[in-house]
């Protein structure tokens, strides 16, 4: 059983991760984790201490568990840039801040880093209103550059085709054939995938609360900084870790919102998709990084996520996820592993690490932290 511990500041509860049923277990390892959660409350997604929290929590967890593999995410700059008006110098200062924070982790931990940027950001241009179509357009995963179209009419398709802001209308079969090896996951794909031109977002039904200022930039390639070797594609990064983990302590570090142009470490180009498709910061990009296989269709953008959110749905603390993904990077490592990040509800699923601690935020509201212990048998 995987255990989940919620820390809501001065208050903790332990659950079975799968069922959400409250449990009470105790061990020195669990005490180490829960005490760390109590000691390190999450400052919040927009707080400039959010990235420092990642480093500090990871260093504490290393001190308490002595892992050989670490998976980290630094996301503060992505959240702030998405919703704030920033000058170029303010953005440069934020990039500098995340650079120092990651370097502090590397210097203090002594781990060999594999640092990946998820892609840069560009100013938001405008919305493409698809709320009045005959069919139903949906966006998911913050990735409103993509939308799924369900039950679209001929009139919808003609209307969309005439919009210069729409880059591409991809029928389900065409999308499927681009990632033919992923057919098993393809049952959730909408009838059409709508792709907006850079800077534009589909305005679908849904919550359009906060005013978006920046959106993910086109990112056919993402930056990769490591001394471990070369990875020409996002699916090769996992292999770098696998090939050296037996003799090297490795930290796979994801830095959100940074692309080829603003990545502050010396880096190489790493392909971030296939053909016309490239990943935006999303569950799919994380899973592709950590499994070494394309995961475009597992929880595809624009799918009818709400249909699956029944009373029977398991993993209530894990967002869209309906099961623990198989063969993720840390799940295949014999040695100990941890994950820490300020991207909510994904670290424990995407990494497969023995222990993960992540912020628990919903719609950017800070609800505390979530620790997940998948493995207790390595101590």
């Amino acid at each position: 059983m995987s255990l989940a511990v919620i820390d809501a500041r001065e208050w903790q509860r332990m659950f079975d991760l799968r069922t959400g049923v409250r449990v009470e277990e105790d061990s020195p390892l669990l005490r180490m984790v829960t005490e760390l959660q109590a000691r390190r409350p999450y400052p919040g997604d927009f707080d400039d201490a959010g990235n420092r929290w990642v480093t500090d929590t990871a260093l504490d967890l290393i001190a308490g568990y002595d892992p050989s593999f670490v998976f980290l995410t630094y996301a503060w700059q992505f959240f702030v840039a998405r919703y704030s008006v920033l000058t170029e110098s303010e953005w440069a200062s934020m990039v500098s801040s995340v650079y120092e924070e990651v370097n502090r982790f590397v210097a203090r931990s002594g781990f060999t880093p594999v640092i990946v940027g998820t892609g840069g950001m560009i100013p938001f241009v405008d919305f493409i209103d698809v709320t009045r179509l005959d069919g139903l357009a949906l966006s998911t995963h913050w990735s409103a550059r993509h939308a799924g179209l369900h039950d679209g009419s001929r009139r919808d398709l003609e209307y969309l085709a005439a919009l210069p802001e729409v880059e591409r209308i991809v029928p389900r079969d065409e999308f499927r054939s681009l990632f033919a090896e992923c057919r098993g996951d393809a049952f959730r794909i909408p009838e059409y995938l709508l792709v907006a031109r850079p800077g534009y977002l589909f305005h679908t039904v849904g919550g359009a609360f906060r005013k978006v200022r920046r959106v993910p930039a086109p990112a056919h390639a993402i930056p990769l900084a490591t001394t471990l070797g070369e990875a020409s594609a996002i699916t090769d990064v996992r292999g770098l870790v696998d090939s050296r983990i037996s003799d090297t302590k490795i930290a796979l570090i994801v830095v959100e919102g940074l692309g080829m142009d603003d990545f502050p470490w010396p880096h190489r180009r790493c392909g971030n998709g296939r053909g016309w498709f490239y990943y935006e910061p999303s569950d799919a990009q994380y899973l592709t990084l950590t499994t070494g296989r394309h995961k475009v269709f597992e929880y595809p953008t624009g799918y009818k996520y709400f249909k699956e959110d029944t009373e029977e749905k398991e993993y209530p603390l894990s967002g869209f996820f309906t099961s623990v993904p198989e063969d993720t990077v840390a799940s295949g490592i014999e040695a100990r592993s941890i994950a820490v990040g300020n991207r909510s509800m994904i670290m424990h699923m995407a990494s497969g690490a023995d222990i993960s601690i992540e912020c628990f935020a919903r719609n950017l509201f800070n609800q505390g932290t979530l620790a997940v212990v998948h493995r207790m048998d390595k101590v």
Partner: protein
Amino acid sequence: MQCTYCEWRCELTGSRLGVCRMYAGENGVVRERFPYRWSSSIPSKVESVPFYHAWPGSRCLVIGTAGCNFRCRYCSNSFVAKQDPAAIQDGMVELTPPELIRKAKQMGCHSIVFNVNEPAVSLPSLVELAQEARAAGMPMGCLTNAYTTEESTEMLGSVFSFFNAGLKGLSAAFNREYIGIPSAEPVVRNIRRLAALGHLEVTTPIVESANDGEIEEIARFIANVDPEIPWHVFRLLPEDEMQGACYPNIDAIARTLEKVRGYLPYVYFHNFVGSDWVNTLCPGCGAVVIERFSLGCGGDRLCSFNGQGNRCRSCGREIRLHGEKIAWNAGEAPS
């Protein structure tokens, strides 16, 4: 000319727009400035609104507009509710009432619930929407701060059949300092009226060292109106102007609520992940009639419904329920 939608009764003469900035005076008539423009139209669990005793398990279309007549210092939706509504219209979607109902059906929704901001700031649009919803057999509910005039409270009653009214505090000092209104008297008056007009639940956010001393007084007031009213006590998330403030202590509030449960049986304490206070217990025998899981911030979900209709399966006592249990995918077209 004077606006009569809420108790501010703002003067709308000339270019004056009033507190909520959602109405303007035009040719002697109060005109809605941004009709049919929605900040939100998203399918959601009715429990997440929160409604714990209305159509349990159902999927509702949560809608909202812009603007508010309150200035709560801790507002979680300040980026919609506190902004100048004119300045955020580019982020809104425009859907006429028939279009909105069609979208609700496409998303398999059973009801429509106004959330996000205050419905009194968009009442003309909601009156029209209610006509369409009624024709489509879709119930409508809302969250309201209940600062409406007596006249518009009746309008709320004509639009919505289930309400969750915010009762943020009773003391004038708290209401002045944290909410920006002179007193809670109109709210108290309207809560009594809403309880008569439809199904009513009440929500109170607890602000550490501000209204936590009023918990029992508020509970007694609600029990006096009707002891079967479900009461949602929210642990405040220090947002907006209160960023950096203390998170209220969960255990301390829970201790106070244990006493309250004796005379207000449907008391809930949530807005934090994993709360133990989200199940409906039978007031007669204590059996768990409805089991839920809370993710905080509008993330509550039904886990199991153990009632027999609106009765406790163990002792047969009636449980306050507006509507029956609805399966989550009941509104989906068969595939």
